[in-house]
């Protein structure tokens, strides 16, 4: 019985971790490829989900019509961001770009609510968020079928993107850009086009995260906060590693739940807010660039 509960917590945590990883991927994508810490990722998640349900609401369209429209919107958004925000800021210090993405986050949040209104909406995916009967009957563990799908989607995304980075010419170029904008320009990497594509892809990743999180928690402003859950995953896994996002997500998810259940009651509970950060920090003390992140080169 006790053991069973432990496994339930563990599995629940791992699956939450998958959901975190989903958001973390968007961060990694942008960071690894341009050295920009994209604070607007959370806002993009919200924007994507809201656009999707907003289109369904306003046009009375079905999910299958709203989805392609949202994809188009996210791509346009990516292109616009590159043109308006990033292009004029090439070769600026990291912190400037970081700040610009904060400005961007405000803009996107305002835009989303202006167009679609602030009310909370529901988003229903064809798959229901109820315990999988099959697993319940056969293994007596409680796992929502929704989570299983989320895990599959997440795995697929990570694999694709990881392959993109490690195996293709564009991937190599992206990593080069992250190291040195100026030199990347000098060797003829079309920074602008690449960034446009990249942000469009990040928009799509945000859409996936937005759909899954939105289906789970409702489409509301709080979706922008899921970024906070993704941050410890990022620092633990490393800002520059796709697999790191998944592994980090699993570790954070599982340990945070176990801690809340087993340590929480001793100290008054509610430690989920800071525990993942402290955990990630402990890892960082051993590996300052996260588990799988690229080593920070310090040489003179």
């Amino acid at each position: 019985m006790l053991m069973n509960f432990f496994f339930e917590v563990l599995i629940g945590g791992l699956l939450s971790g998958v959901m975190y990883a989903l958001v973390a991927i968007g961060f990694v994508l942008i960071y690894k490829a341009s050295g920009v810490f994209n604070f607007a990722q959370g806002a993009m998640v919200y924007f994507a989900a809201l656009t999707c349900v907003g289109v369904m609401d306003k046009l009375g369209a079905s999910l299958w019509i709203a989805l392609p429209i949202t994809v188009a919107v996210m791509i346009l958004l990516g292109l616009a961001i590159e043109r308006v925000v990033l292009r004029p800021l090439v070769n600026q210090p990291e912190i400037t770009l970081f700040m610009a993405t904060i400005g961007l986050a405000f803009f996107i949040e305002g835009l989303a609510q202006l167009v679609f209104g602030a009310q909370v909406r529901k988003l229903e995916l064809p798959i229901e968020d109820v315990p999988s009967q099959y697993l319940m009957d056969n293994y007596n563990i409680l796992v929502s079928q929704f989570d299983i799908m989320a895990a599959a989607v997440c795995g697929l995304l990570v694999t694709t993107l990881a392959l993109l980075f490690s195996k293709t010419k564009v991937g190599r170029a992206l990593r080069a850009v992250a190291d040195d904008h100026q030199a990347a320009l000098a060797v003829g990497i079309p920074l602008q086009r690449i960034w446009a594509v990249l942000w469009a892809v990040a928009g799509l990743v945000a859409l996936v995260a937005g759909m899954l999180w939105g289906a789970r928690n409702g489409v509301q402003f709080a979706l922008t906060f899921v970024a906070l859950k993704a941050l410890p995953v990022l620092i633990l896994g490393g800002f520059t590693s796709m697999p790191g996002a998944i592994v980090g997500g699993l570790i954070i998810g599982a340990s945070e739940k176990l801690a809340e259940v087993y340590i929480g009651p001793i100290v008054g509970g509610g430690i989920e807010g800071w525990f993942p950060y402290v955990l990630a920090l402990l890892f960082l003390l051993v590996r300052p660039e996260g588990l799988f992140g690229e080593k920070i080169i310090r040489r003179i």
Partner: protein
Amino acid sequence: MLYREAGQFKTSYQADGQIFPILQDRIALLALMAVAIVAVPLLASPYALSAILIPFLIFSLAAIGLNILTGYAGQLSLGTAAFMAVGAFASYNFILRIPGLPVLLAFVLGGLSAALVGIAFGLPSLRIRGFYLAAATLATQFFVVWCLTKIPYLTNYSSSGVITAQPIVILGYVFDTPASKYLLVLAVVAVMALLAKNMIRSNVGRSWMAVRDMDVAAEVIGFRLMRTKLLAFAVSSFYCGVAGALYAYAYLGTVEPEAYNLDLSFRILFMIIIGGVGSVLGSFLGAAFIVLLPVLLNIVAHSLALPTSVASNLELMVFGALIIFFLIVEPHGLARLWQIGKEKLRLWPFPH
């Protein structure tokens, strides 16, 4: 022709080491201080004093604190509000538990408590840098607020978890009007800004900047990384702590730990980036920008008679867009813009 340094020869290094080496700047500053001390309390409306100037000064102080850490020592931090919270709650407890403790001393003690917490959370900076550190400082933010809600002692067992700042009494004088509070805050901020400026132009300041620009080289030259970074954390947190205490005592009055949330940390961060990373002047300019801009936008939006929800969202969008706009125009912030303006003025009427 009015603004020239030509003809102002420095006869000693002491004169050259002044904070404002150009005479016109010194005169302008003195004039500004005179206005701030005499004219403002007399002429400004209570609204301007208590809703604009006081928070502006308090945020400037916090921004100086963060600038010391992030702008000068190069350690990006997202935990500013936590240090402010420590300052506020510690001051509250000191005054509460030590009868007769002078308020100013309590602020200092509050600042020192924040400094201690700062040192503790600064320790990881010895290994971790950049955005990793930034994300890790979020731990401070969440942990401190968590402690304040979990440990009833800190809020004097108040059932709702809020504290009420005691009245500010110094030498029998009660600071309760907007004007008197403003003067108190002004005095504290002016003195601390001066101290910050002094630190920055002496060896500590240089050690911070050296660590920021290239920590390996700084070590080779003989700076101790650990001491330098932790000192930056301590001093920065001290500033934030005092600012946090002022925020509670001279501004909000009654506060819950939630008032020092992540949002506040970010606002302070905006201030230094918009104002100028690594500039004391920038801290003031940035604070003014972030305090005033939403108010202006709000007023403009109202005068356009837009529906409120449209106006509110537009405000947010314009705010975000303006941040981006300023970064594009000048990534080094308003302080740099100001400086370029001055340089142009110096060259005037020649373009270069």
